[in-house]
C-alpha cells in the first residue's frame, strides 16, 4: 500500500483511540467519593490554607494550579454553592504551596476538592469537575447515597 494511505489510516486510528481514552477518563473525572473515616484536615492545615470554619456549617478546599482550565469550572461550582448556602465557605489554593498536605491525602492531580464539615472532617473528595448536585447531596448529609457509584 502507498505509505501515505498507511499514515492516513494510522492517524485515523490514533484519533479514535485517543477519543475513547479521553471519554473513559472523563467518565471517571469529577466523581464525588465519600471521605474515609477519621480523615480530616488538621487545624494548622486549614490555617495555612486560610479557611476559617468557625461559625460555618461546612467548607471546601480546592487544590489547583495556575494553568488548570477545569479549576475555573470548579471555582464556579463552589461560588454557586456559597451563594445558595449560608455558612458554606471555600478556599482555593495552589497545590504547589501545599505539597505536604497533598502528599498526606494522596492528591495526585488538580483540581482536587475536599468537602469538610465544621470540624474539618472530610465528608467527600473529588478530582476533576464535580457535579453540583452531588456536592449538594454531601452537604445535605446523605454521605453515601448516590455517591457510591
Amino acid at each position: 500500500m502507498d505509505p501515505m494511505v498507511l499514515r492516513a489510516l494510522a492517524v485515523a486510528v490514533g484519533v479514535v483511540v485517543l477519543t475513547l481514552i479521553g471519554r473513559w477518563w472523563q467518565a471517571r473525572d469529577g466523581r464525588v467519593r465519600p471521605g474515609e473515616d477519621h480523615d480530616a484536615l488538621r487545624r494548622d492545615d486549614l490555617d495555612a490554607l486560610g479557611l476559617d470554619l468557625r461559625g460555618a456549617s461546612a467548607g471546601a478546599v480546592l487544590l489547583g494550579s495556575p494553568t488548570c482550565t477545569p479549576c475555573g469550572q470548579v471555582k464556579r461550582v463552589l461560588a454557586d454553592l456559597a451563594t445558595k448556602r449560608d455558612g458554606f465557605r471555600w478556599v482555593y489554593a495552589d497545590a504547589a504551596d501545599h505539597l505536604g498536605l497533598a502528599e498526606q491525602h494522596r492528591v495526585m492531580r488538580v483540581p482536587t476538592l475536599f468537602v469538610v464539615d465544621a470540624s474539618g472532617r472530610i465528608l467527600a473528595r473529588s478530582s476533576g469537575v464535580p457535579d453540583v448536585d452531588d456536592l449538594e447531596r454531601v452537604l445535605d448529609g446523605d454521605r453515601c447515597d448516590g455517591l457510591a457509584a
Partner: protein
Amino acid sequence: MSRRLARDGQGSLVIDVRGPRFGAAITSLVLGTALVVQGPLGLALVAWQWLAFAIATFAGLAWSPYGNVFRLVKRRFDLGPPPATETEGPPRFAQACGFAVASVALVLLLSGLTVAGWSAVGVVLALSVLLATTGVCVGCELYLVGQRLRASGGRG
C-alpha cells in the same frame, strides 16, 4: 482588535470556553494533514502551526489566528453567547507547551532527523486531538508530579 475583548477584574483577557477547543480542532486538522502528506507541504504546515502557537503564546490569545477564526465563525453562524468564560492564562499556557514541542519538531525535521521530528509532531497532534474531542486537561494530570519533582530537586 484586542480593545473590544472582555476582561475580568484583574484585567486579564477573558475568552469563550469553546474557543480553545475549536482552535484545537483546527490544529489537529493541520498537523494530521502534515503527518499524512509529510514532504515539503507537511513541513510548511508544521511551520505554519508553529507560527500560530508562537503568536498565541507571545502576543496573547486575542491575536491567535484560530481564535479570530472562531470569532468570525461565531458571528457568521450565530452560535450564541458563551456557555461560560475563562481567563486566558491556562489555554495560553497550553499554547506555550504546543509551541515548545512544535519548536523541537521543527528543529528535528530541518536537521534531517525526520522520524524523531514527525514523532514530536505526533505528540502535539495527540494532545490537540484530546483537547478537541474531550476537553481533557493533560497539564492538570502532570502538575503535581512536576511540582513534587521540583520540590525534591530543590532539597538536593
